[in-house]
């Protein structure tokens, strides 16, 4: 079927098989390969993107379900001048990654969390990451990064 998805602000239109998953649409049609396929069973969160502003696991959404909607991947977080999103900067500053495979999903889950809860407690951050697995087990620095990104992420939303 023909689907049109706004990905990181650009309209991507393609005729794809009905069974195409959003994550494959992003990687193979839009050529945006930052979003990883991890477990492929709605568990690990590596494929997390924003669909109409909310975090979703793109391995469990059909491209057809995203037709006409707005998707943001980690490639779309930097602003027009190329400056990284506060959550990305915080992951760098706090060393919130080891191998990096879970990172795009972690960052998108964090962006969605801070959108819904601009100043979360540490416990709330940990709960919000229940659907994102880091097999390096580097959770402490990830949580630290998200907590430290909260004020700047709020500022960016209000500006």
């Amino acid at each position: 079927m023909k689907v049109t998805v706004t990905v990181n602000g650009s309209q991507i239109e393609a005729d794809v098989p009905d069974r195409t998953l959003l994550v494959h649409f992003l990687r193979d049609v839009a050529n945006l390969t930052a979003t990883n396929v991890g477990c492929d069973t709605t568990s690990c969160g590596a494929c997390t993107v924003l669909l109409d502003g909310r975090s979703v696991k793109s391995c469990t959404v059909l491209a057809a379900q995203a037709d006409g909607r707005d998707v943001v991947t980690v490639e779309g977080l930097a602003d027009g001048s190329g400056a990284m999103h506060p959550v990305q900067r915080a992951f760098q500053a706090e060393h919130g990654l080891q191998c990096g495979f879970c990172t795009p999903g972690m960052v998108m889950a964090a962006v969605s969390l801070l959108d819904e809860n601009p100043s979360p407690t540490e416990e709330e951050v940990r709960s919000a990451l229940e659907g994102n697995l880091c097999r390096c087990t580097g959770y402490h620095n990830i949580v630290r990064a998200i907590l430290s990104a909260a004020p700047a992420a709020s500022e960016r939303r209000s500006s």
Partner: protein
Amino acid sequence: MIPAPFTYKRAWSVDEALDLAVQNGEEAKFLAGGHSLLPLMKLRLAVPEVLIDIGRLGELSYVRDDDSQILVGALTTYDELARSSLLAGELPLLAHAASRVGDPQIRHRGTIGGSLVHADPAADLPAVVLALDATLIARGPGGSREIGAGEFFRGLFETALQPGELLTEIRIPKPRPASEWSFQKFTKRAIDWAIVGVVVQGGRVALVNMGQTPVRASGVEEALAAGAGTRDAAAHAAEGTSPPTDINADGRYREHLARVLVARALEESAART
């Protein structure tokens, strides 16, 4: 993993969804949030030839106050239930249980109706609507009918819905007082299905993952009605159940968990009043 090929059709109204179901027969399935159906399709455990996407039917997404009951549209997501201020006041049990399903991403997509029609005995919300004595509204080609939650769950992944029928609404009588509730979910990891779960609202007690369907702990309810204390009542928790044995736990351990969790739930519920 990619699902087997199917034809995708999108409905823009309940009537159109029902028409599409009639046209496509038993090989068609309704797709709501897709968080039960798509994983099954990726594993090829479900191979529908046609998917009828009802995900854009805004008319089925709501939480409404209707005098003595709360009306919940079948397409309301877990996240919307968890954030509903109406539920926070009138049905805190449902709001809380929804906030404990899966993880944030799953709660953004998964719907109450999808969970109920999937009828997984390890799922939380089927036991919640059972404990709340909800009535489920199904629409089919012949019109609408009401199904009591106690009659809805027929077996493993099996409900009272007929082919072509669509669950549209869940009607829940307002519990009085709303505050006497508890939801206990025993898992190894946060996002896991309950090994055993317990739902209490007033004197009604329902169990998650203690049989082929969610079940009411009638032995506990009868003991409570006869004036038993929480510990004595909880001793009846596993009566009449047939818990599964699987990689997480054997049946006897589940029976033990049911008694422990029912006791905790009754104590928590009583402490809220």
